[in-house]
């Protein structure tokens, strides 16, 4: 369960949004500049909203009224950035293990993730030698390997060519079934949202314009 209410002023956008969701996969859908990534960054603790409150499964991550602001490193989120951000000096294996080591946790999921995401043949390679789709699969595996409480996906298919896009989308679908982890998906692609989300929040210019089920969302699409 995620409960979020934030107000945040950016140079070209004022974000004022609030929602509560129990959906396993909630999509934030809107054009670029709608404030989607800002919301993910606020949940991850990489951005401090001007005002608001963020609660994840009864744990308060941020509350401006009481001064609670949990450090990003302590929030236990798995963040897949739009630009991947794999560590270039580490092998795929070391990238995957990074979060678990930082959180001093045993990784029970690693073998399963390597199987589901088909990373077995890539483990000793460096990120620079991977294709776009492979890099994104590693980024997804890295975010999940430390067993976070929520997976944040920021436009995970953007920049991939068609074939890689289909492949990564299938992997994400499979992970959704296998891992049953709460996921927040940011996207401006309707097909991606329809394929993965349970509920959808439409965003426009920093505000929520609708909170609907994916069935309603899909029928609205041209």
């Amino acid at each position: 369960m995620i409960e979020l209410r934030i107000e945040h002023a950016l140079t070209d956008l004022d974000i004022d949004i609030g929602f509560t969701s129990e959906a396993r996969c909630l999509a934030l859908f809107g054009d670029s500049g709608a404030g989607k990534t800002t919301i993910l960054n606020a949940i991850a603790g990489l951005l401090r909203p001007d005002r608001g409150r963020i609660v994840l499964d009864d744990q308060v991550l941020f509350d401006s009224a009481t001064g609670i602001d949990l450090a990003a490193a302590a929030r236990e989120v798995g963040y897949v950035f739009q630009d991947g951000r794999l560590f270039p000096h580490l092998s795929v294996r070391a990238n995957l293990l990074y979060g678990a080591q930082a959180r001093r946790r045993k990784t029970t999921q690693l073998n399963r993730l390597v199987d589901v995401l088909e990373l077995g043949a890539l483990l000793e390679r460096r990120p620079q030698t991977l294709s776009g789709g492979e890099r994104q699969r590693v980024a997804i595996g890295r975010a999940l390997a430390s067993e976070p409480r929520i997976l944040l996906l920021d436009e995970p298919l953007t920049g991939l060519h068609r074939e890689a896009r289909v492949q990564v989308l299938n992997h994400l679908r499979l992970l959704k079934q296998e891992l049953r982890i709460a996921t927040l998906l940011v996207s401006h692609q309707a097909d991606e949202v329809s394929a993965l989300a349970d509920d959808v929040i439409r965003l426009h210019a920093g505000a929520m314009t609708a909170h609907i089920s994916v069935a309603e969302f899909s029928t609205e699409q041209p």
Partner: protein
Amino acid sequence: MTALSPDEWQALALSLRVATLSVVVSLPFALGLAWLLSRARFPGRLFVEALLFLPLTLPPVVTGYALLVLFGRHGWIGEGLAQIGIVFAFRWTGAVLAAAVMGFPLLVLSIRVAFDHVDRRLERAAESLGASAWRRFITIVLPLSTRGIIAGGVLAFARAFGEFGATITFVSSIPGETRTLPIAIYELMSVAGGDLGVQRLTLVALSVSFAATIAAAILGGSLWGRRRDD
């Protein structure tokens, strides 16, 4: 040209030891200060930067005199240190201190530039994966700055190897203790018949500096794989 005399060998060995140790000893401080200058905003930052670059801009003899005032046997700090058995004045350890001070700005500057070039987004990614500031520094910032750290180390080594003014002012010229290679060259120049020795040591100085630079280029390029532009 004949082989090096025992005195010349002694000066060369001392210079190598002093230059190497000066870099090793100052490296942790340089890493810390470079990180502060690259990442932290704090009051008095401009003052710290100005202070850092003083050894580059001051006449070396002034730096040597300042070291004498601070770390001499009766210096502000040296007197206290002498009571616990740490003596710099007229000791090879003083030559290390002088060389470290003179090379420090170059070391910090190179490392700071390297830190500035580390993609902050990678540090944010590491933070989201649960890495503390210290872990991010050790596992992301440091390895991605290897080239700059090596380049800075070599520059500081070369500067320390050639150090003359501050050293002779602070620790004088004592054979086997503080008479480094540049000081030996300087003294041979004022001795009748010292020409050959001057030429030999000059050639040695040239070779060491050149070899260090080549080594840095090779090491810096291969430590974590060649940079890819793809």
